[in-house]
């Protein structure tokens, strides 16, 4: 048995699911007929809070455990995922303030909780690996019960900055929970995969910004999607702007409101009141993502006083402005880090629970050009539920690789296979516009992994005859055209009504109108020329460019529907 545990079950006996093991929430998903579906647990939750709680030796997890943050915080473990594989010195225990506190046991992070029955039972000290194992075991049990088959294997998503040590700690925790980890995939790529796997999606060369706005952290990545292959170009990680920062805004708001009515009683000063306040504020925040008004009500908030209030979305967006702007800045910074411009971005995927907030998506609409698709529930009706993206992506990957032997998967994910050259400049052909100007038609986009093969069909001149095919490198630059400087007057007017928050939000928009920014292709070094002779009137020429792993380029050109054609190779 111990042997089979290390090598995992045979591919035929596997039941594989996708797991998102998040710091605040986790999800499990399975595939039915190649479509990923997120599984609801026993409580009916698709977002399962990553929390374990022990009451009288009973183990609770998910939403039930979260409720115990109010009554039983010292035996409730929350926000522990990020501690996996880290030493005590390097962890940030801020979020654990209202739950079991992490402790240093020989350098490893541990929690001391009473997990056994009886009043005077010895509290046990659990390492974060052990806690993770217990939590993963609960997730697997839920999935097993839902599917009616023993779940043996999973693909788990991890943040891009998970170190090898953290990964191996996660693997160890999963193995201890009798779960074979087929693969650990990075979160942004799981989100892209979930979108690309939709039946209506087409494989395109595009630059995708994946913003994962979670409860305790925000990670943004720029991913180059090239022919269905994904390369992460840049990432930023942020622990300031996140869901709990938005909760904090609401907590402060309602606490102040409470104090207005009951002078001298600050519900934030009592741990239990604060826990109640936080719990309700989170619910209010979620309600504000759906409706424009939300009620807030807590029984016996502090000193036995019940408290009820309402808030509308505008007010929320005003008080949370700094946080919302933080998200926008974060996304701008990662694009800059990747050496790109907002104009280069074709798609923005918002993922994670915080992405439901409409203001965040609306702010992004303002900074990106109209051609960029912002995939968030408030801006795009076809958007996938951002909370479910990662689990879906993981489930899809699990269904793809579950038929392979573990050794095969290991070999395929080896660095020798995954590390390949990516061309820096685009390769394309030159066509002429009506005014006789040469323009660049990109065939292989920059940052495409080689070997790569792309085909393009270009119209021949109307009259037909012999055509020249010029293969060249190209790159983009941003052309800025500034109109007449007449903006002085309007700017002064804007300063006057600056205290009106609405005008602040539309700032970017009005500036965009002022100067026109375009992405233009610049023709670089010519690589080759070829001729296709005797093209028919109104004919088309098919050009395919093939870049080998050693950067040798093969160009094939022929008239569509004709025999023969030209073929040539440029050795690297």
């Amino acid at each position, binding site marked *: *048995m*111990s042997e089979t545990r290390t090598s995992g079950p045979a591919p035929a006996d596997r039941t594989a699911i996708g797991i998102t093991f998040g710091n605040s929430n986790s999800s499990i998903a399975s595939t039915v007929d190649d479509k990923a579906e997120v599984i609801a647990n026993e409580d009916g939750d698709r977002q399962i809070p990553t929390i374990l709680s022990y009451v009288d030796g009973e183990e609770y997890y998910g939403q039930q455990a979260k409720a115990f943050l109010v009554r039983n915080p010292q035996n409730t473990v929350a926000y522990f995922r990020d501690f996996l594989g880290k030493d005590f010195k390097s962890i940030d225990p801020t979020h654990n303030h209202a739950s079991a506190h992490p402790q240093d046991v020989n350098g490893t992070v541990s929690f001391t909780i009473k997990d056994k029955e009886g009043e005077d039972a010895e509290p046990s000290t659990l390492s974060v690996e052990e806690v993770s194992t217990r939590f993963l075991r609960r997730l697997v049990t839920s999935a097993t019960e839902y599917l009616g088959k023993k779940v043996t294997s999973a693909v788990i998503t991890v943040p891009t900055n998970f170190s090898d040590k953290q990964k191996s700690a996660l693997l160890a925790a999963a193995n201890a929970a009798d779960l074979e980890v087929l*693969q650990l*995939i990075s979160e942004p*790529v799981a989100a892209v*995969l979930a979108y*690309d796997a939709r039946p209506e999606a*087409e494989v395109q060369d595009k630059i995708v910004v994946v913003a994962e706005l979670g409860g305790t952290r925000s990670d943004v990545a720029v*991913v180059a999607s090239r*022919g*269905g*292959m994904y*390369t992460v170009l840049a990432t930023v990680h942020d622990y300031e702007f996140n869901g709990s920062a938005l909760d904090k805004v609401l907590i402060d708001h309602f606490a102040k409101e409470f104090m207005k009515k009951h002078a001298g009683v600050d519900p934030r000063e009592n741990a239990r009141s604060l826990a109640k306040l936080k719990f309700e504020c989170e619910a209010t925040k979620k309600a504000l993502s759906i409706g424009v008004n939300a009620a807030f009500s807590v029984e016996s908030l502090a000193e036995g006083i019940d408290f009820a209030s309402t808030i509308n979305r505008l007010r929320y967006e005003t008080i949370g402005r700094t946080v919302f702007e933080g998200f926008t800045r974060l996304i701008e910074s990662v694009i800059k880090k990747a050496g790109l411009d907002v104009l280069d971005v074709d798609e923005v995927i918002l993922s994670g629970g915080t992405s439901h907030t409409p203001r965040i998506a609306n702010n992004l609409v303002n900074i990106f050009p109209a051609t960029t698709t912002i995939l968030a529930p408030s801006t795009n009706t076809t958007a996938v539920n951002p909370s479910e993206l990662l689990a879906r992506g993981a489930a899809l990957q699990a269904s793809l*690789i579950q038929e392979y032997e573990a050794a095969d998967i290991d070999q*395929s994910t080896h*660095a020798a*296979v*995954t590390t390949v*050259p*990516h*061309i*820096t400049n685009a*390769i394309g052909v*030159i*066509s*002429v*516009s009506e005014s006789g100007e*040469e323009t660049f*038609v990109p065939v292989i986009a920059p*940052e495409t*992994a*080689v070997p790569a*093969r*792309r*085909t*393009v*069909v*270009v*119209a*021949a*001149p109307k009259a037909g*005859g*012999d*055509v*020249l095919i010029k293969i060249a490198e190209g790159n983009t630059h941003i052309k800025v055209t500034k109109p007449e400087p007449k903006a002085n007057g309007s700017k002064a007017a804007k300063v006057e009504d600056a205290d009106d928050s609405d005008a602040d939000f539309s700032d970017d928009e009005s500036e965009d109108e002022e100067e026109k920014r375009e992405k233009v292709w610049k023709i670089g070094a*010519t*690589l*080759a*020329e*070829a*001729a*296709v*002779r005797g093209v028919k009137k109104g004919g088309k020429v098919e050009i395919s460019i*093939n*870049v080998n792993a050693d*950067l*040798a380029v093969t160009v094939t050109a022929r008239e569509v529907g004709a025999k023969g054609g030209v073929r040539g*190779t440029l*050795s*690297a």
Partner: protein
Amino acid sequence: MATTLVQQPLPTLPEGWAAEKDFKPIGSLTKASATQRTIEPVGPHFLAHARRARHKRTFSEDDRIQAQERAKNVEEENESDISEPEDPMMLQREAKDWKAQDHYKVLGISKYRYKATEEQIKRAHRKKVLKHHPDKKAAAGRTEDDNFFKCIQKATEVLLDPVKRRQFDSVDEEAEVEPPTKKQLANGNFYKLWSKCFKAEARFSKTHPVPAFGDEKSSKEDVENFYNFWYNFDSWRTFEYLDEDVPDDNENRDQKRHVERKNANARKKKKAEDNARLRKMLDDCSAGDERIKRFRQEANAAKNRKRLEKEAAEKKALEEAQAAKEAEAKAAKEAEEKAKLDRESSKKAKEAAKTAVKKNKRVLRGSVKDANYFVSGDASPATIDAVLGDVELVQAKVDPEEIAALAGKLSGLKVADEIKAVWEQEVQRLIAAGKVKDSEIKAFKA
């Protein structure tokens, strides 16, 4: 990936452009025009990339091989319906004797038996129907020959109904694997032979997965798990299939009830027999299982080791205590003896010293007497007293070593002046050392 269509036309070939085979290489991609990056090992297109990279295939080769593989898959699926040869005796079967027929064999899936999926049964049925349809036989001139067709229909009816199929599987002797005999065990692999038997038996289990029998390397936990599972085996095996036919209602009611009771008893009996059979099989197996013996020995060895270790430790402690005690006694005795010796020797030395001092004092006194108390003629008692008083004084002031030294100086001397000089010298020394005051000295004044 779909090819894109660009409407903007290509340039026309300039006049005089010529190249070999119409292709003119000008530049090339260099190392500098590429960055090494890591692609995320995710998604269907990556799998294709990994396949190409690992097998070193080009795009077109990979496309071809993939297409071939897909094509082969379809063929295999068609082939998978095994066409078992049909036994001519089986084709002669009477349909009404359906209880005795082997349904799997009739459908030609006897190599799958209880493992056959519903899909396989359906396909096998269709295949057989196409071959044995009575209309086809009628076309060949054999009318009314639908006996085997009825057999096929009956077999399908039984096998596609989960309840009936279980009843048949319960008594399907062809699927049975006999437990290995002693002779077989002596020659073959114990684990292989038994695991085959248990695998077959596992088909009756209500709970799945059934723990594997394992091999000689299995852990204690796994082996215990296995035997626990089998000794508490929950079987769905029933013996309804072997029931006697129950007469219809319209016949004798008592007769019917009698048969029913008989059937129920027979089922119960067979079930009990089956349980006993399984239990015996398990007993036989566990009796011959080397792993259990080994685990027992290991447990015993561990227990013994602990006991022996404890005893050894106790013995050692006892011995050490004894040795310590002996050593202590010895040391005490030695110390005592030594102290006694010391006492004796110091007593002797003291006595010797005392006698020496006495002797020396005598020498001192003798010296002044020899010198006739430093006067010529008869000395007056006063003089004698004064000289002897000085001698006494000096003797009292100096320690035995000095007395000995003084005695040494005086012993050889006979001349009165010399003796006096020695005495005076000694007195001088004592005065200088502050031991004797000048005034106390009466006779030996220089």
